[in-house]
């Protein structure tokens, strides 16, 4: 079984001290070690943002793709390489902002991907602008009078589009997050784990402490993670306003919804059952198709 250490490149992370990305990095390494995945068996695709700098710290095979565009290459890699598990790491600005089109359409497909969203509700790498998940009326450098949009509800969107595993994690609880990752990575079909990951430099509202006072674990309640409609209502409850108290503003973490046995996108694609490169081992005879034209 691989050791947690084997998944670190040895590069010193450039994240700010106290950044939520450390917890997410640690939890993923632990989950991979716990699952015993060999490095040959999976690939990771990152978007661009603070989360994406993790591409230099996690020692795995993968792609550090474009901003907002981690999902399309990951989808195609999984479609053409049935021998690989594919994990996507994306940010909230990255995946829910610029990449929202890809996000919604990926949800519709139920590809066999694990999608981890680093949700710090702010643009960190570009120095503090509002992100699609920044709370309503939050003042940021790009919204000095407050954000006028409602925040994106990724869990609600995922439920609407038929995602088969949906969880929310908290970077401040590494053991809990590790277990969510293990479940997500073991899920066949699209698994979305949206992780609240406080930004110490730019988000002075949704801090580690703010979350610590509000999160609770769904598994500690009688939560039924097979009830899609209830999960949707729960996703609405996590939209908190800036003034809410720890008592009134509760943030559920854990598995919101899970459904097994749903065919994946790859299941429906005959050509996806073998590595795509095998088709190019020699020229293919197309004389039959040529003759059938016209």
């Amino acid at each position: 079984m691989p050791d947690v250490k084997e998944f670190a490149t040895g590069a010193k992370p450039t994240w700010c001290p106290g950044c939520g990305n450390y917890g997410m990095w640690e939890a993923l390494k632990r989950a991979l070690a716990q699952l015993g995945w060999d490095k040959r068996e999976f690939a990771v695709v990152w978007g661009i943002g603070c989360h994406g700098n993790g591409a230099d710290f996690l020692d795995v095979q993968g792609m550090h793709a474009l901003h907002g565009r981690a999902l399309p290459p990951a989808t195609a890699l999984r479609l053409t390489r049935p021998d690989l598990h594919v994990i996507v790491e994306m940010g909230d600005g990255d995946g829910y902002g610029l990449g929202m089109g890809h996000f919604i359409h990926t949800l519709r497909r139920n590809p066999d991907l694990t999608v981890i969203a680093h949700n710090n509700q702010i643009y960190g790498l570009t120095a503090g602008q509002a992100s699609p998940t920044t709370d309503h009326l939050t003042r940021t450098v790009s919204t000095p009078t407050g954000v006028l949009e409602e925040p994106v509800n990724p869990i609600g969107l995922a439920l609407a589009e038929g995602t088969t595993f949906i969880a929310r994690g908290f970077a401040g609880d590494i053991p809990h997050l590790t277990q969510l990752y293990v479940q997500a990575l073991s899920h066949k079909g699209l698994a979305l784990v949206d992780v609240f990951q406080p930004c110490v430099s730019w988000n002075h509202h949704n801090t580690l402490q703010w979350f610590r006072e509000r999160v609770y674990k769904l598994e500690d309640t009688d939560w039924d993670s097979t009830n899609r409609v209830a999960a949707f209502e729960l996703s609405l409850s996590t939209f908190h306003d800036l003034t809410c108290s720890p008592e009134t503003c509760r943030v559920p973490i854990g598995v919101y919804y899970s459904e097994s046995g749903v065919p994946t996108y790859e299941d429906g694609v005959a050509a996806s059952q073998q590595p795509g490169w095998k088709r190019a081992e020699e020229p293919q005879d197309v004389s039959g198709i040529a003759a059938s034209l016209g």
Partner: protein
Amino acid sequence: MSTQPAPYGPEVRIRIGGPAGFGIKAAGQMLARVFARGGYHTFDLTEYPSLIKGGHNSYHLRVSEQEIFSHVMPTDLLLALDAQTVSLHLPELTQGAAIIFDPADAAAADLDLAGRDDLCLVPVPLTDIVYEVGGVKIMRNVVALGAVLGQLGFPLQGLLDSLEAQFAHKPAEVAEHNVAAATRGFEVATALQCTSPHRLQVLPPRPFVLADGNEACGLGALAAGIGFYAAYPMTPASSLLTFMAKHAEDQAVVVKHTEDEIAAINMVIGAAFGGTRSMCATSGGGFALMVEGLGFAGVSESAVVVGLFTRPGPATGLPTYTEQSDLRFAIHAAQGEFSRVILAPGDHADAFDLTWQAFNLADRLQTPVIILGDTYLSDNRQTLDQFASDDVTVDRGELVTEGKVEDYERYALTDSGVSPRVLPGVEGAVQLVNSYEHDAHGWATEDPATRDSQNSKRLAKHKLAVELAPPPVEFGPREADLSILLFGSTKMPTREAMKWLSAEGVTVNMLQLVTVWPFPAASVAEFLERSTRSLVIEGNATGQLEGLVREFCLREPGHRLHRTDGRPFSPELIYATVHRILGQHVDLTDAGAVATTRGAR
């Protein structure tokens, strides 16, 4: 009246015109198939506005005993599915041309013939016949196709065979009604005995392939072992998506209609990372969206093939027409600098050859290869003897697909700029493919020396690209009265015009730039050096190819012919232009031409 330089051998030009939504293209293509099976060479040109129903559509089919290279302007037989078609296409009708029309649309006396009395009118009650045989109105086409064969004196059987094959999977009465409709149309037209000089007889059969440019391109990709194709529909590239989708299952190719062109190219990069030969295609507007991904492919050294089939822009432009105005766009697309190859197929055979070669180049160079086509090539069907499928080779360059490696570096520095590629999944091949500048392993870096060495490495591949990319192809005599330089589909009408000119003793040669990037400067300079007079033909307003000649050859081409009204260059236009440059006025019409030529400065 339309005239044409002689001789062009026995041939008949048929136009079918009518409202959009009448199945005009499908009917025309059936006719093309019948004549191709009857031993003829065919070339068709479809013109339709970007509407599903409503506007005027037309389909022009050239049928010849001899090898032909393009469409031509005249029409010898006009099949008018509405009265408007007659007035719209009257100027292109040749001496003694026949018009098949439905008297229910307009009585013969009411047709707008502008006083011409040489025309042969063939009234066929298309709608009445449809109802007479118990059919539905959409079958007017079928009656009309029967009438076309009757008028040409060509046997009906080929059409009946085609109809039976087409409706084989439908209830028996569908084929029966269609056969009856075609037969009745044939009989009525034959009985009218309209004396038009244009007749066709069955020739000895010969092997043929009837394909449009997109089909030729798709076949080339399949032959090359493509495993992933992604696209968002955009005219004129859409039919390549439907072609690939149709063959996805039996050819074991993953074909994805994506949410947008951005996803298409990023998916292609992801599939290429896994080692799969991957391609996307679009037109200018979709390519604009792909530009970001193209740069990612460049910096990540991904072996991807991108089809760019151009149409008139900017923005939505003229969706269903043709233009060659994205040459510079293709060359310069994406921020930063990296090596790329741009191949410009000039005809259907090229489209097949260059597509499979594009995959080899992409693998050898590990950089994007663009196939630059246009609507004229994408949409129009031509008969070929066959595609050169025996020539297809698969060269994946330095690629390890299985096994084990040690100390692997994805972006190792090499003299050629190409680093050996080991697929993810191979033991020891842990690697990062990166859109950031990166070191040899793939990890992001801002170290100035590493940045310089990696950037230089990517640009170094240009030298290998010059070596590997297909050279220009020269047509015509070595010494000529006029030397023509061009790229892409303009090759087709130019070859046709050269045939006419050659028959008159006018010598013209032509250099077709097969690879437009890296720009083949030495060959172009040598060609121009040898020329008496030179002419650059390109379908844009600003002389994009001409500018490259100036930049890379330090030469001033003598003459230029541009076209930007959305219509393809016709051989008539090129023929007349050559004569004008040589000091002779020729009165040939290319209806709708807004071509501009300017003399040497």
